[in-house]
Every structure is written in C-alpha cells, then in structure tokens.
C-alpha cells in the first residue's frame, strides 16, 4: 500500500513544507487570500491537468490542451459577442466541441495505430490555427453574465475568497478521483496504461477506453477554456500557450508515471499547487527574475523523475521481476 501512496506523500510533503517556508518568510503569505488565489489562479491549469492525468495514466499524452483552451476562449467570444448566443448555450457548445475534438483524436490514435504524440501535436496546430483564423485580436466579452459569474464567490474574512473557478477546480478533482478509483472506466484506464496487450486479453474495451480518455481530456480542456475566458473576460488566440507542458509537469510532479499505469489524481492537484506556489513566492519576493519559476519547476521535475525511477528499481528488485519502464 505504501508503495502506491509514496509518490503522493512526497508531493504533498513538498507542498506543505514549501508553503510553510513561504509563510515563514512573508508574513502575509499564510492567509486564506493567498490560498484562495492559488486555487483561482491555477484553476484552468488544474482542470486541464486532471484530464491530462487520465491520458498519461492510459499511457498516452495530449499536447493539444493549451491550444484547445485558447480556441475555446476565441469560440466563446465569437459566439457570445458576434453571434449573440447566450453564454450558457455557448458554454455547452464549447464543451461539446472540446469533447468531440478529443474523441476524434482518440479515434485516430486507436484505429490508425498512430502515436498519441503526433496526433495530438497535429490537434494542437489545428486548434491554434483555427483560433487565429477566427480572430487575431483579443476580443472582449461584455455579456453581463460574465461579470455576475466573476462575482460568485464564497468570501472569507480578510479578503480571501473561493471563486467560481476555484470551486470548479475542486469539483473537477473530486469527480476525477471518483472516476479514476471507483469506476470500471477508471480501472480500464489503469489496465490499459499498465500493459495494453494484457489489458486487451483481459477483455478491456481498448477502443472505447482510448476514445473516452481523449474525449475526457478534450472536455476538461474545454472547461478550462471557459474558466480562462471568465478569468480574462476575453477571447484571445494566443491564450494559454504552453499550458499543455504545465499540465504534463503537474502530472509528473504529482507522482504519475509518464509510461502510464501508476499514479493518483490527487497527486496532480498537488503538482498544480506546487507550481502555483513557486510562482507566488517569486512574485512576493519581487526581486528575482520570474524565469526562476521555470528553473525551479525544471529542477523539481527532474528530482521527481529520478525519484520515480528509484522507486521502480527498488520495487522490482524486491518483487524479483525485471525492472520495467
């Protein structure tokens, strides 16, 4: 049991120790406002990262999520501002488009036996390209519902708040944990990522699971796009560039193995917050180049990959079977 949870424990320990160190240095750090900000500011990355966790657990990768987020913001701006569609309808359309786009990529990956890397890379170019065709400017969304939704928040004393994006983030992670650990679909994903061939022999519906995983990732990228458009109140074709890499980083720091099969959804949540924490620390400090964020995350990523490699070696030695991965 401890084997399964050890990476998660390390991730959470890093998060807690990191937070305590920040709080020790900056008196205003240990406040509900900072915690609320961490959740709100990282909501779109976190929601997309939840989807990425499933993809990576299944042994795949999805490079299109950043572009799908950007595309969703543009689509929403065009639908709401230019076509005059109600935001709620536009949200539903965006989720359908996101899920459909993901499902299509999953179908290509499965039936044409293509590497997910290439298929989703193509998906990334398509999504980003289409958003540029729709508009190259940043389109403001002025619908009153947007400002209303931005006001939705559970306020704490001291100015902290649990905003709607933060609530969505928590909700998505709660549902994702249920899906991963207590459903047949979740079990199939783990089986597929562990060993595709034996999963097939065991009767796991490989086609349905593969398509489902990418559809889920696309759906969550669409939701992340909605959150992002709420966040900036605009549709912008350059929005969320590189977010796919942030989400992959969060998944790996969260203890999920890039080769698939091992990992926990909750770990990804920790991975997202660790990245946010480092960024917040550097802003609080105010004298360091913000590029230190990238360096710190790079070092962390490296450490976690080594840690996984080490854990794997230790387990396989003990179990007596050859090291995999």
């Amino acid at each position, binding site marked *: 049991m401890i084997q399964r949870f050890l990476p998660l424990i390390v991730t959470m320990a890093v998060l807690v*120790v990191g937070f305590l160190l920040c709080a020790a240095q900056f*008196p205003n750090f240990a406040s509900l406002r900072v915690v609320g900000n961490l959740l709100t*500011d990282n909501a779109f990355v976190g929601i997309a990262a939840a989807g990425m966790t499933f993809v990576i657990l299944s042994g795949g990768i999805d490079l299109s999520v950043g572009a799908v987020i950007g595309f969703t913001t543009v689509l929403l701006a065009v639908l709401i501002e230019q076509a005059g569609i109600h935001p709620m309808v536009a949200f539903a359309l965006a989720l359908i488009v996101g899920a459909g786009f993901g499902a299509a990529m999953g179908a290509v990956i499965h039936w044409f036996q293509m590497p997910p890397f290439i298929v989703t890379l193509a998906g990334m170019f398509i999504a980003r390209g289409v958003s540029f065709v729709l508009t190259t400017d940043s389109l*403001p969304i002025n619908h009153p519902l947007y400002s209303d939704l931005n006001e939705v928040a559970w306020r704490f004393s001291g100015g902290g708040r649990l905003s709607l994006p933060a609530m969505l983030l928590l909700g998505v992670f709660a549902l994702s944990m249920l899906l991963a650990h207590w459903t047949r679909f979740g079990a199939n994903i783990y089986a597929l990522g562990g060993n595709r061939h034996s999963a097939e022999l065991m009767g796991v519906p490989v086609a349905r699971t593969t398509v489902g995983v990418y559809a889920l990732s696309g759906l969550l990228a669409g939701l992340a796009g909605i959150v992002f458009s709420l966040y*900036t109140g605009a549709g912008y074709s350059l929005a969320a560039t590189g977010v796919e890499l942030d989400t992959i980083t969060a998944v790996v720091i969260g203890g999920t193995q890039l080769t698939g099969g091992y990992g926990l959804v909750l770990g990804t949540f920790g991975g997202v917050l660790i990245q946010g924490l480092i960024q917040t620390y550097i*802003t609080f400090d105010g004298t360091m180049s913000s590029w230190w964020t990238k360096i710190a995350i790079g070092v962390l990523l490296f450490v976690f990959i080594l*840690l996984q490699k080490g854990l794997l070696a230790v387990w396989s030695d003990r179990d007596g079977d050859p090291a995999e991965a």
Partner: protein
Amino acid sequence: MSMTWLKSAVAATAVVALFAGVAPAQAADGKLVVGFSQIGSESGWRAAETKTAKAEADKRGIDLKISDAQQKQENQIKAVRSFVAQGVDAIFIAPVVATGWDSVLKEAKEAKIPVVLLDRQIDTKDNSLYMTAVTSDTVHEGRVAGEWLAKKTSGKCAVVELQGTVGSSPAINRKKGFDEIVAKNPGMKIVRTQSGDFTRAKGKEVMESFIKAENGGKGICAVYAHNDDMAVGAIQAIKEAGLKPGSDILVVSIDGVPDIFKAMAEGTANATVELTPNMAGPAYDALIAYKKTGTLPAKWIQTESALFTPETAKAEYERRKDAY
C-alpha cells in the same frame, strides 16, 4: 525501503534549498512598496523601461517589486493578485493586452490599492478601476517629427515614409500626427509610403525600393520612419546607393534608442522623437502626492515627446547606452 526514504529526503532537501536560497527582507517600515507587473523583456525599450523603473524607485526610496509576465496575461493577473495579497501600497501594470482586467482590478480596488497603468491603456467601462495611466501620445510624436521636418526644409520636402507594423496603434497614430503637419504645408508631400514592420531589415529593404523608384534617390528630400530601427536600416540603404544619409536625404524617426543617437553623432541621422522609457517616474510622483495629500492625479499623465538633434547626440548616447 531505506533507499526509497533516502530518495525522498534528497528530493525534499532540494526543494527546501530552492525556497531558502534567497531571503530578502520585506520593506522596512514606512517605505512605500510598489508592485510592478511588467509585460516581459521583448525589446530593448522594454528592458530600459524596467531598468528605469528600478532606478527611479531607488531615487525616491520606494521598494519596487517587479514581476515579469513573460508575455502572458494570465501571469500578469496572477502577479496583481499576489501583490494584493501582499498588501502593497500601489500596483503598476504595463498591460500586455487591453482586455480582461476588470475582475482583478476590482479586487485591487476592494483592497483599496491604487493601480497605475504604464505605457498602454486598457479597455474598460469602469474608469475608477485605475487611478491614472502614464503613456505617451503617439499622435503627438508624429506631429513633433513632422514639425521639425517642416521647419528644417522651410515647408518644402518630398518625404518617403517607413510605416510600422500594419494596423498597430503606434503605426496608425504616428502616421496620423505626421500627416496633420504635411496637410498644413502645401510644399510637403509624402511621395511613397510602405510598411517596414518596425524592423531594421525590412526598413533597409523598403528604403532600397524607394530609392530605385525615385530616380536613384534624387527625388527624395527626407525619410520619416515610425521607429529608429527602421531608420537605421534606411541609413544603410542610402549609403549603399551612394548617397549621404543626413544631408542628401534627411532622416527623422521616433523612439530615441541608443543606436540612433550614435547615428546622429556620426551625422547620418538628423532627428528623433523620444518615447521615454521613464514611465514609472511620473507614476511614482503621482502616487506620492496621492499618499501625502490625497489628491487624485489626472486620469491620463502624458509623457513628454522630446525632440533630439545631432548637437546633443553624443552626450545623449553616453547617457543612454547603459539604460538599454
């Protein structure tokens, strides 16, 4: 198992080291703390703006916290939220895009932290979300360049124009201001105009085609470039055509980067209108006045668009080369 725990210990130590590596103290009591969300460091001018903001803060005893957004709005929003959480005395933003600032600025307003926009404006219906904006008037810059040229040539000049990136607001406005002056002087005419995309290479290329089209450059009295970089490219093209930049063809441009001062000192350029990188200075002054007496500054603080000519070029170059 011991191996595993060793590894996790190593991991944890590395992270602790990361966080503990630098430990600057919070500002001493009584010092104003300003958080500045900068777009990035994409151009020499932008880097100079950041450097000047630091220098001007030191001059006034202000503690400046800078966050580089790496060209991403989401990073700017995060930085503003962090500044609010930190309880800074004011927030400066150089917004990367005009839209999408309302909700985060509302949080700053609720926390009673004044916000100053630097160098660019934002799109918002609620002007009370920021205290003031410090920007240059790009139409005025074009006017200043045009006025200098009209005076220098007694209102008689065939001008070729190197425009900035098509559709960008500085290109539109710098053309508009210059055109106003041309319209006032019947002897002045823009004979050719084309975009050089604000770059040196494109400026040179377009200038070459202008020279060919205008009888080897004989029909051109002056070149007006929307930025210094294109002017530097144009100077190269004029030299290569066997003409003397600065006398056969006058060169006037906008921005005031070190290279154009160097060119002026060498006599190959004639005038530049400075877009000052000191946007933070006037902002600090407005902020200090507000904190002391409670007087709100005007909604728009316009920076000076000063004209520089070869007479002072050498000294100006020396003064500037370190800021960029």
